[in-house]
């Protein structure tokens, strides 16, 4: 193990390390902690210039209640869910199939198609912006959740295919061979042999894509406009415009917007990290 395990060092070092950990963590998360503190202060503290002093009283509940009951925030959150969940389902479903095709079959253009998915996934969004916006307008889907979902599904299919194909490549191929010898149809091999083995990959991709799409801002701004379709990342700017200089409410709003992917991460940590670090280990 590297660096040398701390248990093997002197008692002093061990205590020093354990003392340093929380200090380092607080320093690392300081900007975030500041916002969390802000979100629990009453507004009089800000008008009185008491930014960093002790809050004059705890106002967390009323601040968050305001966000939830007196602003458009719940609608934005709902939009985010209605955009994110279908995208996750769509992208994972499509990429299970593309990953299966590219991971199992040998045909001449296999590697080229695979590389096309990979390359497309690296493309800067901006080069897609004008044509995709145009396309969405043409389909009559501008400023709809569906328009955003369709694009996200297509774009995420690139990354998901990379992920799924590599995962399927690592499965024992003998299973598929055995099934073929038995005369099992190809689609049944996919459904009954391969798909059950892909559960960990599906879980990992689902949490990753959830986070990516929830946090998307660029496409939300390009393809949607109003409270009826904008996800929370784009909505928070209008929220902030509404509560300009009301730092306690803006802070509470930001925390609410950030929370769902954080919860997802903590609940599905193992899958999340497995997905994110795929390929980091040989």
């Amino acid at each position: 193990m590297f660096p040398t395990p701390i248990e093997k060092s002197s008692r002093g070092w061990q205590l020093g390390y354990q003392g340093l950990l929380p200090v380092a963590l607080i320093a690392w998360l300081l900007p975030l902690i500041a916002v969390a503190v802000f979100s629990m202060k009453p507004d009089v503290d800000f008008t009185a210039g008491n930014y960093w002093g002790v809050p004059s009283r705890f106002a967390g509940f009323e601040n968050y209640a305001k966000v939830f009951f007196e602003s458009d925030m719940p609608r934005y959150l709902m939009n985010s869910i209605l955009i994110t969940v279908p995208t996750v389902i769509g992208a994972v479903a499509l990429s299970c199939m593309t990953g299966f095709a590219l991971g199992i079959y040998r045909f001449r253009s296999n590697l080229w198609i695979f590389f096309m998915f990979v390359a497309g996934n690296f493309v800067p969004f901006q080069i897609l912006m004008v044509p995709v916006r145009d396309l969405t307008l043409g389909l009559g889907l501008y400023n709809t959740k569906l328009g955003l979902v369709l694009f996200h599904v297509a774009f995420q299919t690139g990354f998901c295919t990379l992920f799924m194909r590599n995962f399927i490549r690592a499965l024992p191929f003998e299973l598929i061979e055995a099934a073929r010898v038995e005369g099992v149809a190809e689609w049944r091999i996919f459904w009954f042999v391969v798909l059950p083995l892909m559960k960990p990959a599906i879980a990992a991709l689902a949490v990753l894509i959830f986070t990516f799409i929830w946090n998307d801002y660029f496409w939300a701004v390009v393809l949607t406009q109003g409270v009826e379709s904008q996800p929370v990342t784009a909505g928070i700017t209008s929220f902030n415009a509404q509560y300009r200089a009301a730092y306690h409410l803006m802070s509470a709003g930001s925390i609410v917007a950030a929370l769902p992917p954080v919860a997802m991460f903590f609940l599905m940590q193992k899958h999340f990290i497995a997905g994110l670090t795929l390929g980091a280990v040989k």
Partner: protein
Amino acid sequence: MTNAALPTAPDTRPRRRNAQAIAPWLFLAPGLLFFLFYVIFPVFQSFNLSLYKWDGLGTPEFVGLKNYRDLGSDRAFEVSLWNNVKWLVLYLLAIPGGLFIALFLNQTVRGIRLYKSLFFFPFVISQVVVGLVFSWFYDPTFGLLNVMLGWVGLGPINVLGDPALVTYGIIVAGLWPQTAYCMILYLTGLNAVDPEQVEAARLDGAKGWRMLWYVILPQLRPATFIAFVVTIIGALRSFDLISIMTNGGPFGSSRVLSFYMFEKALSEYGFRMGYGAAIAVVLFLIMLVFIAYFLWSMYRQERPR
């Protein structure tokens, strides 16, 4: 796995072979069509569009390479391009930064798992929130940064209001989640480092830096490669933070190509789609250098199979 995709021998009935030739295309069709439609074709459409003058409504007017010639004399474009270079170079600091934190946290004391997750935190929250958090952190009247500078008798500085500082200030905000990402890559990589090699090197007297450089880092190469890929892409895609923190200002000094393109194409003073597309093409060509390199590396890894 070497014979992974060889045609299977036993079953030679023609129907069976046909099924195996058609099946991959049926499985590919939905995903591939979607991807072509929304990602691959638009790339070419943008190339084409960059040769036109178009306000997004009327008929596009063919102007040849005029958009690109105009870029040559556009000061704002030059500033954006230069800022992109800063982003590319400084963003790479996330890699050693992430490695450093990973080495710091690669211990087995109590509660370390929770520490690792909490250090990873910034990556999970959206860049929009990161941008807001940092713009308040930098705020000249109440930001924590100036409070802390005040303790040592410095400041106050207005990071986001100073054309000379603003890009660096935003890059620091971007480095926060990116470092967390690199950290998690390295933590996973360190987990897989061969303990026997480490012990052997220790017996040979390798320690500290030499151990890290000659024994550990070579084993972390896959993690470094991925960290490099995601950091380069992240640097060239930077948009959210700029849009949230400064909206390109002050005086356009924090723009990058991706932001400038957006601004031109969908500006309040009339859409310049063709000009925007030309900027996007330049950005794409920069990215293409890296994409080609990434694909080439992947291709070399695929060969041995």
